[in-house]
């Protein structure tokens, strides 16, 4: 039982990271129907930004400032990618946009390899890791912070999307782009904003991922990126709540597999799960069924 609860906490930790990254996938998909393969790389760049800000400057920045600054840089990167590569392809066939996204992902990976080299950087936790005792369980502070901050940001996002005017515009664009234009919504700005928010949250996920596994390297975004995408599909792509739910579920399934079956088979099981979901309920848990029109 103790092992189970411990694994559950670990699962929530990984799940928070997946959920943060999955939100980026789901928001972009919801608004321009594109699987942004480069999202995992934005996550990786976010981690590099945090590393550079925290360890290469001559003065010490406070932890929260490091996070906020790296998130903003990642947001700028995300908007830049959208403007350079995806904007021109909005009217193009979806396969072209998808191929561009794959190209962008590879490009960013190898750009990072060129800039930072392929040897991993060691990411020390930016906060002290002394365990906190909660209900007789010693939980590292980092785990608590990961879960807490992730949930805080998700709540902020939900508030933003559901209660504010820009959030309303975002929902409108994802429902019907043409009608949104007629209502005087600047679609280009809304799409850029979506990329910015998604990228910022992805970067946050990347920073936590790097601190949990204490390493940063150019291809670190690939596997968690794919898994976060699976989480987004699992929860129902296009739905923000679904991405959060899917992220936590995938995180818990993964840690439980590691603990009770074998760590060798984790990837096989998660990808197998993806195939099963796609076969039986491609719309995911919270997604809506869409009928195809002739």
């Amino acid at each position: 039982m103790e092992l189970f609860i411990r694994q559950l906490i670990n699962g929530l930790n990984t799940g928070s990271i997946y959920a943060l990254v999955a939100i980026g996938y789901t928001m972009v998909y919801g608004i321009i129907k594109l699987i942004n393969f480069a999202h995992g790389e934005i996550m990786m760049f976010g981690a590099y930004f945090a590393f550079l800000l925290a360890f290469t400057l001559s003065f010490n920045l406070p932890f929260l400032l490091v996070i906020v600054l790296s998130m903003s840089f990642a947001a700028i990167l995300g908007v830049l990618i959208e403007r350079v590569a995806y904007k021109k392809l909005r009217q193009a066939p979806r396969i072209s946009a998808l191929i561009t996204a794959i190209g962008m992902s590879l490009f960013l990976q190898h750009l990072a390899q060129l800039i930072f080299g392929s040897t991993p950087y060691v990411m020390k936790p930016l906060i002290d890791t002394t365990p906190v005792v909660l209900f007789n369980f010693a939980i590292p502070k980092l785990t608590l912070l990961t879960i807490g901050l992730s949930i805080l940001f998700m709540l902020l996002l939900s508030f933003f999307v559901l209660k504010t005017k820009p959030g309303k515009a975002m929902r409108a664009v994802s429902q019907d782009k043409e009608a949104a234009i007629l209502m005087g919504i600047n679609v280009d700005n809304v799409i850029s904003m979506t990329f910015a928010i998604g990228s910022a949250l992805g970067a946050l996920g990347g920073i936590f991922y790097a601190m949990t596994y204490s390493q940063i390297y150019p291809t670190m975004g690939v596997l968690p990126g794919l898994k976060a995408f699976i989480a987004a599909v699992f929860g129902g792509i296009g739905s923000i709540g679904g991405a959060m739910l899917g992220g936590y579920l995938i995180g818990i399934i993964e840690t439980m597999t590691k603990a009770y079956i074998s760590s060798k088979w984790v990837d096989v099981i998660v990808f197998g799960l993806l195939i099963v979901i796609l076969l039986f309920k491609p719309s995911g848990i919270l997604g809506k069924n869409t009928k195809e029109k002739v």
Partner: protein
Amino acid sequence: MKLKLTQLKNTLLDPRFINYTIIVTIFLTMFLLIQTNAVNRYIYNLLIMVLIMIVMSTSLNIATGFLGELVLGHAGFMGIGAYTAAILGIALRPYIATDLLLFGASATGAMILAGIAGLLVGTPALRLRGDYLGIMTLGFGEIVRNLITNLSSITNGAQGLSGIPRIMTFSIAFWTTVMIVTIIFLFMNSRHGRAILSIREDEIASESVGINITRYKLLAFVLASMFAGIGGAMFAFKDGFLAPNSFNFLKSVEIFVIVVLGGMGSLSGSIISSIVLVFLPEYLRDFNQYRYLLYSSVLIIIMLYRPQGLMGTKEFDFTKIKAKLTTLVTTIKKRLKKGRE
């Protein structure tokens, strides 16, 4: 006498005859170059690599170019083929002395197993469309790589499988490639191939003229995976060593880039871009660290400015060169005449 001459002329100008002659000429030139040691070991290996990539890209072209479905796990089928052929090759070596027969037997096994895998993945997957199918094949490719790594009793896991007979010569590779490309070309120009093309153009319309969509989609998908299995077999016998990481997502993307660059739906485009994309990075040795940066930039730039690829859906045809040249000459003559007037 005169009749015989016209007959001879007709045979000589027959497109098929021209194509056969050109293929044989290419082969003989390369063969002579290799025999006289004008081509060193390094380039020899690269040539075989080009042929393997031609097999891989033309086979992916059936599913991605002609059928129009996104397949991101082609390296998975290649891996299945490679490991099957390698294991068969090691097991059959004591019984079959001839290299060609050994390759034939192992490649057949590889083709069958990769085809079965294609059938197993394709049957459920082809209900999905577009990006979902891409994601599913991506997941399949990753599963295959993980299975190869984990089933270490059969595949020797992450350390890699060694001791595979190195029987892949240029001649075997060349004629295998010619055979596969010819089969794909003839198939795509048959009524079945046209049915597949019509599905790409408009699924609903082709269904309403009585084409069995599911069957033809599956047919294209299974054919693509079978030929990928043969490509994998060629790869296995080239170096005598296999590692699971040779068949990762990056490999699938590499094959995909070749198809996109050459033009989705053009076999000659795939052949040309295979040659370019295998040789170019090797000749820019100092440039090697930029290799994938180049690949990815090429991919993005092509999608932005020429989404149909180098050749589009057109085929390069030797037999039409003469006709094209004559039209070119006449237009130049006309221009010159105009200029004089």
